[in-house]
């Protein structure tokens, strides 16, 4: 049993009641007096010059209050998390189909819709690039000045000497793997409402905003005002998965510009079609791997060349591809490594953060490759991996020694493969040579993953704990609930540390006017970073309360325990006070019962030229094993069972950890066999859920979540992370299982019917994003 009172228990979510009753307030549920509705006119062509923009007729339509264009923006014309290159409204040139040209603001959404048709835009189409290899080829059209060769960024990594390494190798394999463009597909489309403030030039924006502080920065820049003139309040989030960041910042900025121009609240809600056309997606990668190993199965060298399709704007590409360069070899000891990762501009829909963040692509490649190499060596893929796997004290490709946490790779691999019966089944299924009917196979994939931002950027977070005179508690956090369960986890940590009851805590919606800028709720950093900040705040308040309790109980401070809503003397628990009575007494004594907690990540380092350094302060390890059934006649892959073993350090809430595993595995399955956003010459073809298929309840396999706990020295109560690792492993596990089932090695995602049956995609719409020749 757990030695904790609140933490490490599967407590019901703190936001469960409001969500099952329909009372949770999502952005589109908000209404304000005099509220107007904004509808956006989007680019007609992915790359075109705007010769003329005439909005007069739209403005004349009764019920239209304003038509907003770039000319109405008082401050910065463009925004972006890394580089400000994405226009809020385009002025002269469209770069992709989702660009906003103008926005009608009207009394009703219907009137705004009608007015959109009255806006006249004259375009001159420009030459386009949709293929990354074409974009980096010599003499290619340059899409953005200041980016020669259409290269957004280049990350090299050099370790040892790969030429020597390949010479020492008995077997050298070269393989190319490609992954597709996919959509976050949060069920709630993007939305924001901007409300002009009473004070001149201030504005409050409510929205489906993953990162309130990023949105605030962007809105303030676009309005040309200081940060404190903009207040962002996050509403209940209908899913995000990395997706409601820069795209929502742009929507917030449009709403804010319109609200200040009209003096009335302005709401913008994307339709599903707009959401898929406008929002950024997961990067498609073209990955060339060359690997060398000795006959006895030791990896000697790896050379990796990756092109990541950034699409039209920089967005998060430099950070996404940085995680790729760190983790590209997988969790294996490779003495000689040469990796080059490039982000590349095209006129495709721009790509950015999505759950996994540069890892699902490379893991598909490296884990397919490990199976291929084992096969060439005549080794069992499991034994081969275990022989090369990171162990305590191993050195990563970037030269980091893994000795500050428990390296549990072997443990998770063994747990997941055992749960699926990998070794016995693999041998049995490999004998199956049927080319007709249904055949089964097993496969697995393993990974290591840096926790939080690493050397990407500033990494610190804050929280505010405020105990009231009756013992109830407000908890504010700079990191935000996105649906994952952050409010619950943080409240558990606060209750554990304060010694109050879980139900005494009310978690307040994230409001940028209350809490310090804590960076973004990304990189699976919430529990480690934000959780540590909550713990820090709660600890400060507990010390005040313990001081009061010590006085009243007439016992030394250090001999009092606070737990479960009581404070008692260790030696004599009958000498005890209710938490609420201590709070009341502390209030009566004029004590401060509120504190800001802060947590700054341990130091990390990175050398941009060599790709060497301590990339992340700690890592998590995961392994997912799958059993599949392949229909040889149709190419259909059915995933029957998945075992997912993840080291989370400490499960603050085992029920929400399991929820993350079920959800991440399912999303990973969609990536593996179902999902692909089709772009035909930059035009989005899959615009709604009738064409863009995500897993339904009929598609999900049996899932066995295996929580492994090796407490970490940094995270709160030893907790690390779970959100993203669950979503990065299943696609290669499925690809390996398909090979085991029918002997077909598929190096392109997704493994849909056509690719499995024919080896290529029939739809001509595909192939322009570096995913297919067909």
């Amino acid at each position, binding site marked *: 049993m757990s030695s904790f009172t609140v933490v490490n228990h*599967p407590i*019901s*979510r703190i*936001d*469960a*009641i*409001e*969500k*099952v*009753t*329909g*009372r*949770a*307030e*999502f952005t*589109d*549920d908000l209404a304000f007096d005099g509220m107007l509705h904004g509808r956006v006119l989007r680019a007609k062509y992915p790359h075109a010059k705007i010769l003329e923009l005439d909005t007069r007729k739209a403005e004349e339509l009764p019920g239209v209050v304003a038509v907003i264009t770039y000319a109405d923006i008082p401050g910065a014309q463009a925004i972006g998390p890394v580089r400000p290159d994405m226009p809020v409204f385009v002025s002269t040139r469209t770069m992709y189909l989702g660009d906003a040209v103008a926005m009608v603001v009207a009394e009703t959404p219907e009137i705004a819709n009608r007015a959109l048709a009255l806006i006249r835009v004259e375009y001159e189409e420009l030459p386009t690039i949709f293929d990354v290899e074409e974009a980096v080829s010599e003499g290619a059209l340059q899409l953005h000045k200041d980016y020669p060769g259409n290269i957004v960024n280049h990350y090299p990594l050099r370790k040892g000497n790969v030429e020597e390494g390949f010479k020492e190798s008995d077997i050298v394999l070269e393989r190319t793997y490609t992954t597709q463009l996919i959509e*976050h*597909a*949060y*069920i*709630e*489309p993007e939305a924001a409402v901007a409300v002009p403030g009473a004070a001149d030039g201030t504005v409050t924006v409510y929205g489906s905003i993953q990162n309130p502080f990023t949105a605030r920065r962007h809105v303030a820049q676009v309005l040309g005002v200081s940060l404190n003139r903009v207040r962002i309040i996050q509403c*209940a*989030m*209908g*899913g*995000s*998965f990395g997706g409601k960041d820069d795209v929502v910042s742009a929507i917030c900025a449009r709403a804010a510009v319109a609200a200040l121009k009209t003096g009335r609240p302005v709401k913008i809600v994307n*339709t*599903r079609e707009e959401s898929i056309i406008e929002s950024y997606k997961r990067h498609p990668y073209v990955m060339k791997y060359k690997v060398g190993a000795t006959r006895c199965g030791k990896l000697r060298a790896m050379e990796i060349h990756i092109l990541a399709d950034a699409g039209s704007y920089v967005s998060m590409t430099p950070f996404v591809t940085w995680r790729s360069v760190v983790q590209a070899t997988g969790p294996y000891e490779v003495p000689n490594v040469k990796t080059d990762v490039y982000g590349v501009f095209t006129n495709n829909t721009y790509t950015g953060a999505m759950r996994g963040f540069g890892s699902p692509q490379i893991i598909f490649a490296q884990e397919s490759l490990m199976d291929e190499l084992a096969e060439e060596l005549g080794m069992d893929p499991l034994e081969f991996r275990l022989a090369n796997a990171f162990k305590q004290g191993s050195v990563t490709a970037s030269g980091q020694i893994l000795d500050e946490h428990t390296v549990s790779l072997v443990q998770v691999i063994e747990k997941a493969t055992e749960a699926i019966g990998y070794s016995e089944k693999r041998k049995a299924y490999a004998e199956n040579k049927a080319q007709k009917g249904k055949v089964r196979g097993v496969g697995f994939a393993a990974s290591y993953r840096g926790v939080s931002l690493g050397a990407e950027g500033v990494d610190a977070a804050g929280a505010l704990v405020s105990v009231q005179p009756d013992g109830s508690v407000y908890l504010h956090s700079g990191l935000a609930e*996105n*649906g*994952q*369960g952050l409010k619950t986890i943080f409240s558990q940590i606060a209750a554990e540390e304060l010694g109050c009851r879980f139900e005494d805590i009310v978690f307040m919606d994230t409001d940028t006017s209350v809490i310090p800028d804590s960076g973004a709720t990304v990189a699976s950093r919430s529990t480690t970073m934000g959780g540590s900040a909550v713990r820090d705040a709660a600890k400060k308040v507990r010390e005040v309360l313990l001081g009061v309790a010590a006085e009243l109980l007439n016992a030394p401070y250090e001999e009092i325990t606070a737990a479960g809503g009581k404070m008692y003397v260790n030696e004599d628990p009958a000498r005890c006070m209710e938490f609420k009575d201590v709070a009341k007494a502390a209030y009566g004594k004029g004590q401060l019962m509120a504190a800001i907690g802060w947590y700054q990540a341990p130091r990390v380092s990175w050398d941009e030229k060599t790709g060497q350094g301590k990339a992340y302060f700690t890592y998590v390890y995961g392994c997912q094993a799958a059993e599949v059934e392949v229909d040889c006649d149709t190419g259909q892959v059915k995933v029957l069972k998945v075992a997912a073993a993840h080291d989370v350090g400490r499960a603050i809430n085992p*029920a*929400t950890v*399991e*929820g993350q*595993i*079920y*959800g*991440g*595995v*399912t*999303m990973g399955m969609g990536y593996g066999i179902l999902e692909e956003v089709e772009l035909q010459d930059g035009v989005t073809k899959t615009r*709604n*859920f*009738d064409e863009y298929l*995500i*897993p*339904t*309840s*009929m598609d*999900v396999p049996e*899932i066995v979540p295996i929580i492994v706990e090796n407490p970490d020295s940094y995270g709160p109560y030893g907790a690390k992370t779970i959100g993203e690792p669950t979503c990065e492993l299943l696609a290669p596990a499925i690809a390996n299982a398909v090979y085991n089932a029918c002997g077909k090695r598929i190096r392109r995602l997704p493994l849909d019917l056509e690719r499995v049956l024919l080896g290529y995609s029939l739809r001509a719409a595909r192939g322009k994003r570096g995913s297919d020749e067909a």
Partner: protein
Amino acid sequence: MKKVKAEQKKLISFTVNGDDVKVEISADTRLIDVLRNKLNLTGTKEGCGIGECGACTVLMDGKPVNSCLVPAFQVEGSVIETVEGLDKSGELHPLQEAFVEHTAIQCGYCTPGMLMSALALLRENPKPTREEIARAISGNLCRCTGYHQIIAAIEDASAKIRLSE
């Protein structure tokens, strides 16, 4: 011609969660618009507008429908049930309780529609198998949970409802 028709107003009467209501609609008003915009029943969510995601599921004369696909004029005289009706007695419905207990919720956007599909299932089939549950909610997309805890919750609720009857 069409546009003129769309702007013609009409009054319809129906019951929602047991209350009689009268609402003015246009020819192009959808049931979801009536619920959310006219009656302020915002628990029902819109996710796709084409009947694919199921977030807008409500019961119409006991059957689950995508309220984004139902023209409001068809609702005349019918009985509509939404998520707001589930705990109207002041107590959570066993399905709601089970969703809470099983952590069958993450972002919560699909939850109201999911609950209504489950309610329709349990009325028709008080003892469904897991397979039948999965089929009953297959029109309700969830991107967060992977459905497992939702299916477990519905199964548990069905047992509790049978016990209490």
